[in-house]
């Protein structure tokens, strides 16, 4: 009997503002402890929160990007719990009336099995709401005490909640990656996962097909896609084994330990918090007028989904290529700049170079596309020389390397300086072929005896004689003509 896996994700995206959500303190990362924790963040008596307009605007941008409803009126609520890094004794969040309701995100899921196609899936979002982050507790030993840094307290977050729509770790990761790309695309979050700007909680349960939802356990604070994958895989395996052994699942919050690859229970439902949400009397309801939404809308960039569809439609790219080229605005811009110079007819070749050699070199050097030593125009120049048969695709890689290493300002200069121009003069190629045939009588004999393999050996020799500068197809044709003619 099979099991069905049900996963929902909650993601905290740190918003790219200058100041905190309810105070004028800076949110810059990496500051000395507590120098960015002002009286409001410390919850000193008598202080009042004042909402940051830019944080609200980020929520509007996100809502528009996922086709959600942006609430004309939303309400801030207090979520009550006690922890030393939460000075007020409550977190200001949104509960009954969040700022963003509904929406969806289309993801492309790689199956991970060779020979099988990636498939598309739409993940529905429940809501997204604004809230403040807590401070940090440092559990290193300070004479048996805990150190508290409140610089992060009050940092604006958007908590993005999905429906339980995903049914594998691969789908959860594909969603998290798509969401990560989207929040960066619309400029509301820097997406820096090491610094905790984008972190996921996964709600996981299993059930027999057709049965009601099983009891879920929530894996907290996953700050890398790899951990998200490992944690869900482990949790699913654990839940299935527990149930098959006749046990039962109890609702709980669990932590993933990257060192062991296991999840372990942090607290069970019995001692779970009762957050006693209620509207925060310090804050009035938030009103978002249609005119505000309209003005944010006009400033929105073309969205990745729209761009993907355009790439497929206008440039004839596959869904897979279109997704890869819209992974970030920078990659998409590079591709479009490349096409502007190389022409639409070469879109597939440009795409291949960007996703192939360029991506590989960037990856190897640990650089972002914005720092690529080969510009989009330089790559376009190279693609054009391959397209017009000036150089072979293979020599194109040498030209690419030369451009990468700064050995020329453009492809033409490199081809000229290195003498890589393809030999297309058939007279010159024939002369070289004659020499090759004379030098390899054995192979010639074998070919005539019906060994096709010998032909390939002769092509290899001929290409070698031309130092790779001849068009392989042309060499092929001329050689066959000579041998059979």
């Amino acid at each position, binding site marked *: 009997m099979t099991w069905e896996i049900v996963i929902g994700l909650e993601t905290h995206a740190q918003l790219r*503002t*200058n*100041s905190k959500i309810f*105070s*004028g*303190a*800076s949110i810059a990362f990496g500051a*000395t*402890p*507590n*120098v*960015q*924790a*002002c*009286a409001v963040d*410390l919850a*000193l008596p008598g202080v009042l929160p*004042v*909402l*940051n*307009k*830019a*944080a*609200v605007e980020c929520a509007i941008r996100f809502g528009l990007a996922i086709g959600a409803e942006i609430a004309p*009126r939303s*309400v801030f609520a207090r979520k*009550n719990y*006690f*922890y*030393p890094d939460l000075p007020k004794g409550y977190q200001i969040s949104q509960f*009954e*009336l969040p700022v963003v309701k509904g929406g969806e995100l289309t993801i492309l899921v790689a199956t991970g099995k060779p020979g099988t196609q990636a498939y598309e899936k739409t993940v529905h979002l429940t809501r997204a709401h604004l809230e403040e982050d807590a401070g940090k*507790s*440092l*559990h290193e030993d*300070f004479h*048996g*005490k*805990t*150190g*508290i*840094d*409140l610089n992060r307290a009050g940092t604006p977050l958007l908590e993005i909640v999905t429906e339980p729509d995903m049914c594998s770790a691969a789908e959860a990761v594909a969603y998290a990656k798509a969401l990560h790309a989207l929040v960066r695309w619309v400029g509301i979050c820097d997406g820096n996962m090491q610094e905790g700007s984008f972190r996921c909680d996964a709600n996981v349960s299993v059930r027999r097909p057709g049965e009601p939802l099983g009891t879920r356990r929530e894996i907290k604070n996953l700050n890398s896609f790899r951990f998200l994958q490992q944690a869900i895989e482990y949790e699913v395996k654990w839940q299935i084994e527990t149930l098959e052994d006749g046990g039962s699942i109890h609702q709980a919050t669990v932590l993933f330990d990257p060192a062991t690859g296991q999840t372990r229970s*942090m607290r069970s439902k019995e001692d779970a*918090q*009762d957050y*006693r949400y209620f*509207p925060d*009397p310090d*804050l*009035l*309801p*938030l*009103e978002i007028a249609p005119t505000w939404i309209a003005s944010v809308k006009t400033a929105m960039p073309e969205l990745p989904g729209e761009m993907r569809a355009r790439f497929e439609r206008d440039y004839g790219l596959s869904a897979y290529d279109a997704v890869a080229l819209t992974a970030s605005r920078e990659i998409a811009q590079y591709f479009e700049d490349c096409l502007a110079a190389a022409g639409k007819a070469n879109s597939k070749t440009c795409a291949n170079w960007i996703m192939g050699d360029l991506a590989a070199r960037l990856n190897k050097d640990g650089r972002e596309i914005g720092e690529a030593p080969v510009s989009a125009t330089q790559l376009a120049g190279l693609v054009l020389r391959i397209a017009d048969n000036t150089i072979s695709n293979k020599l194109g890689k040498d030209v690419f390397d030369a451009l990468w290493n700064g050995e020329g300002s453009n492809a033409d200069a490199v081809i000229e300086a290195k003498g890589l121009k393809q030999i297309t003069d058939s007279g010159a190629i024939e002369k070289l072929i004659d020499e090759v045939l004379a030098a390899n009588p054995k192979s010639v004999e074998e070919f005539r005896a019906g060994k096709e393999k010998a032909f390939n050996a002769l092509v290899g020799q001929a290409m070698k004689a031309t130092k790779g500068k001849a068009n392989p197809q042309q060499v092929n044709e001329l050689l066959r003509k000579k041998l059979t003619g």
Partner: protein
Amino acid sequence: MSINLEQVGRIARLANIEISPAEAAQTSEVLNGILGLIEQLQSIDTAGIEPMAHAQEVFQRLREDCVTERDQRAAFQAVAPETEAGLYLVPRVIE
């Protein structure tokens, strides 16, 4: 609706308040008095009325996204019970 001693104990725990059995009994009496008032309010028919989030029908004023606070750590930490290396120290928290 009324509240029993066990519920008073649970609320006290959630609020991190220590109360003695005598206080719990007294508190439950006071709370039940308040709940009586609420019960009276709840007899009003509120069908179709949108819940109110604030006593005034006005909306939140927003702040421009500017850093206006300067570092006042020294002043804040001067009144803190204990600090070290810029951190506020609290009794050890064990998860």
